[in-house]
């Protein structure tokens, strides 16, 4: 294998083996199911404050995304750079919502 073909590990990489047990993954999955059930509940229970149910749904969805990214996609064990990248994406998403919100809330 030529020098340049070797996988390069960034300094500070914790990408060594980080095998996580089935039991742990199963737990995460169960958590996701519960969160999904909550999303459904919030929408069908017809909570009168519609804005709140939207906000709650968004919060739950964000929490789920965070769990999937950290555990299933292994960001939690990855180099900090990748976590920062993930953070920037979340920030971007927040800005989309804020800018669209400026339109809807001042119309």
């Amino acid at each position: 294998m030529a020098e340049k073909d070797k996988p390069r590990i960034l300094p500070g990489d914790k990408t060594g083996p980080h095998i996580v047990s089935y039991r742990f993954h199963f737990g995460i999955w169960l958590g996701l199911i519960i969160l999904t059930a909550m999303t459904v509940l919030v929408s069908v229970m017809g909570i009168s404050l519609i804005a709140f149910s939207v906000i709650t749904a968004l919060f739950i969805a964000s929490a789920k995304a965070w769990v999937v990214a950290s555990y299933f996609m292994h960001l939690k064990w990855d180099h900090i750079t990748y976590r920062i990248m993930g953070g920037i994406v979340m920030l971007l998403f927040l800005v989309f919502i804020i800018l669209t919100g400026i339109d809807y809330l001042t119309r």
Partner: protein
Amino acid sequence: MSIAASHPSSFYADKRGILSWIFSTDHKRIGLLYFYAIFAFFLVGVVLGLLMRLELIAPGRTIMEPQIYNQVFTLHGVIMIFLFIIPVIPAIFGNFFLPIMIGTDDVAFPKINLLSWWIYVIGAIFALLTLVVGDGPADTGWTFYAPYSVKTGTNVTLAVLAAFILGFSSILTGLNFIVTIHRLRAPEMSWFRMPLFAWALYATSWIQLLATPIVGITLLMIVAERVFGIGLFDPALGGDPILYQHLFWIYSHPAVYIMVLPAMGIISEMIPTFAKRTIFGYRAIVWSSLAIAFIGYFVWGHHMFTSGMSGPARVVFSLLTFLVAVPSAIKVFNWVATLYQGSIDVRTPLLYTMAFIFQFLIGGLTGLVNGALATDVHVHDTYFVVGHFHYVMFGGTAFAFFGAMHYWFPKMFGRMYNERTANTAFTLLFIGFNILYFPMLVVGIMGMPRRYYDYLPEFHLPNVISTIGSWILAAGLILMIANLIVARRKGAIAGRNPWGGVTLEWQTPSPPPQHNFDETPRLSEKGPYDFDLK
């Protein structure tokens, strides 16, 4: 398939036959596959454009019915945007040259790379299917605005699915390039020794990766509304049409930077080569690419000033739009400063570069007119906008693409074209382009609306001039293509480095060998544009 001047170790010689191409995972072959596919669609789009111009040569009906005209401009727009201008530079030259320029032997995921080409082909087939089934191609414009796109009987569903599928191709290319740049750079190739084309692709890839899914979902929502009657955008079903515009432009404004950033990267490669000096303000250009990619996410509302969006939102979006002009201007200053006191060698690619700067400048400055809330209210949906975006996309990106074709042709095919003919073709293209589009800016200010097959008699003269320009442009295109086809078969052998370039692709044979280099390329400590390295 290979009639290029191929020496025994060239990647053309490696394997033969059509299957060795359409199932190849070699980034160079995939780049060429994209090249032929994308160029073919470009020509289809051009023919549709010429037909529209012919219809508009005189008021009233000339060659087609209004409904056909609506379908033609939609198909023209869809082809030019999704099949041509978005993939053109990353998928062709990015694939072919990125790995070579950063000193590696392929992209990070070669099979995914091949997959992205196949997805492109499938998406293209969907777009073409709209021609032959049902009530014909969509008539909504390439923007598919709701609620009309929900109600029209034309093939919106298929067209939207085509755009959805093509989006995946774009995402996979972006993903591949990001990982390639992070992981596969040659050992001495630090971030700030990367050529500016690689940086431009890096910034572009992030947009492809993060913005494309948004339009994907939005287009699926149109399908859901059409097919299942779910009320998302159509007010009659309880939906909100302005929400569609928000979602559409959250992608499609960043997408204009997918279209133009790679072109800027190419310009930043060609200028040092033909000025024979290092680029002025390397880091400024790098940071401006990243800044454009980032700020570009926050300005989408400038497409919606007359949509009924709230007043404060319009002010905020207008303000943010002016911010994004700054990094673009930084690049233009740096290019001009590089030319200053260079020993300029006026070859064909440099001519395209100069045309790019001139036309992009007009496109950019007219963009400020559109970005300013007070003026846009007057020019929105007029021919001024059509003139503006053709100056940016065609005068900018497509001219950079033509320039790159002439710049890298000897590297890709190992042969040289006739420069005198190439320059004649360039002259026709340049003159034709400006005669075609400048009158659109004028007639737009006069108040001629876009997307109609007819116009008031007082707009006649500029429209005639514009149509004549389209013929000159077509002549230039034909000459350019003929010249390159001849060169590919009969051109003089080009050698490694016909222009005296210093980035890594010039250190390998033309065409490159299967694994890109025959000897370890040399890198300068002083960055990628060190013309003292010899």
